[in-house]
């Protein structure tokens, strides 16, 4: 059996068209040996959850700069639960006011990454969530 390769879905839910940050993170995850399924812009929560199911990913990264995180993220989390994927680690990146972070975490998001986050921290957080924290 070959070693498990971590598969991560990177998606931009909602209507903002800025994917530079998502691409930088995707590249960093690739360089850390992960397979990144990049779905592109303007994804609905339904599309994200269905892609996560078909791709059987280990984690999901959502990049949101539109301010709609309070609506979009809980919908993704609820639908994951409905499809039996409630334990999937979900990370959020983008422009998220600090005051909104506790609500996202309460909805089940593992970590929220704002501007200036080192990509190594994202890699570490994903590995940690998947129980591979020591293999850095």
């Amino acid at each position, binding site marked *: 059996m070959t070693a498990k390769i971590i598969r991560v879905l990177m998606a931009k839910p909602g209507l903002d068209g800025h994917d530079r940050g998502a691409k930088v993170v995707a590249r960093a995850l*690739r360089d850390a040996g*992960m397979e*990144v399924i990049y779905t592109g812009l303007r994804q609905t929560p339904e599309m994200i959850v269905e892609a996560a199911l078909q791709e059987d990913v280990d984690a999901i990264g959502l990049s949101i700069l539109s301010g709609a995180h309070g609506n979009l993220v809980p919908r993704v989390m609820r639908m994951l639960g409905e499809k039996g994927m409630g334990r999937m680690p979900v990370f959020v990146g983008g422009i998220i006011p600090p005051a909104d972070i506790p609500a996202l975490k309460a909805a089940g998001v593992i970590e929220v990454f704002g501007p200036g986050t080192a990509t190594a921290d994202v890699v570490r957080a994903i590995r940690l969530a998947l129980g591979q924290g020591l293999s850095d």
Partner: protein
Amino acid sequence: MSTLTERVAAGDRRALAQLISRIEREDPETQKILAELHASTSRASVVGITGAPGTGKSTLVNALARAFRKGTAGERPRTVGILALDPSSPFSGGAILGDRIRMRDLALDEGVFIRSMASRGCLGGLSRSTFPAVRALDAAGFEMILIETVGVGQDEVDVARQADTVIVVETPGLGDDIQALKAGVLEIADILAVNKADQPGADSAAESLRAMLDRNERTLDGWQPPIMQTVATTGKGVEELAAAVLSHRDHLARSGVGERRERERAERDLEERLRARLFEHWQTAGGNRLAEAAEKVARRECSPEEAVRALLDEGRLDKKPR
């Protein structure tokens, strides 16, 4: 029968996704599951879509899948499974799998299943797991299975061994008529698609390809590969392309060529499995000094020929495997 087998055979999408992951990990359990599923496979038509990077393969796969879903030219709608390959980094082993970006039209269609796969070190345009994943999609009931290869150069022709029908995607301006004469990718085409045909040079590209095809080995199977002009972004020519795929499928069935290719495919598959098992057998029989021998060869302390002879002695195949 394992529950995963039953769930996949019943068309459970989550189970199918999990089976493909286990295939990719080379989990030994999948051998049993695929064996159990074998009897329910072989209903699907497997279509390979290959061509250079940037020729529009993903967009064409998206458009083609929509045509099969809709059912065109008197054909009934069909379900579609897609395996979309992208390259793994030779350094980190990671990959960016971006083919879904062009397939958003299919995202919520229950009759479509898309799986992105990294090549994981395989250099022929596919990955080692591609063919077993085709079997899984087939067993789950998908009727048309589209394999989009890694963007290829001139020599990555593995898809011809796995697919019933190969579409080679070209674009105008990719090269002169000497390029069309060269051996390799163009020779494996059952159908040639000149995509981006709204750009200048589409007719002359089609003409060069036509001249090359007049002497193609594969026409010996009684099939003249058609040259289709498509614009995948608008859907122009795509219904005709879908119709050509179905008529090639009918040709394979009618002429007996399909059966022959299936036999050849099975033979190659068995040969590869046998090689892999013999290597495993050698390892379990005590052959484990590969790295050491490689170092000696690199230092010119012994030749590769001598090294192989010594290694074979070490893992004697007449010993019982553990």
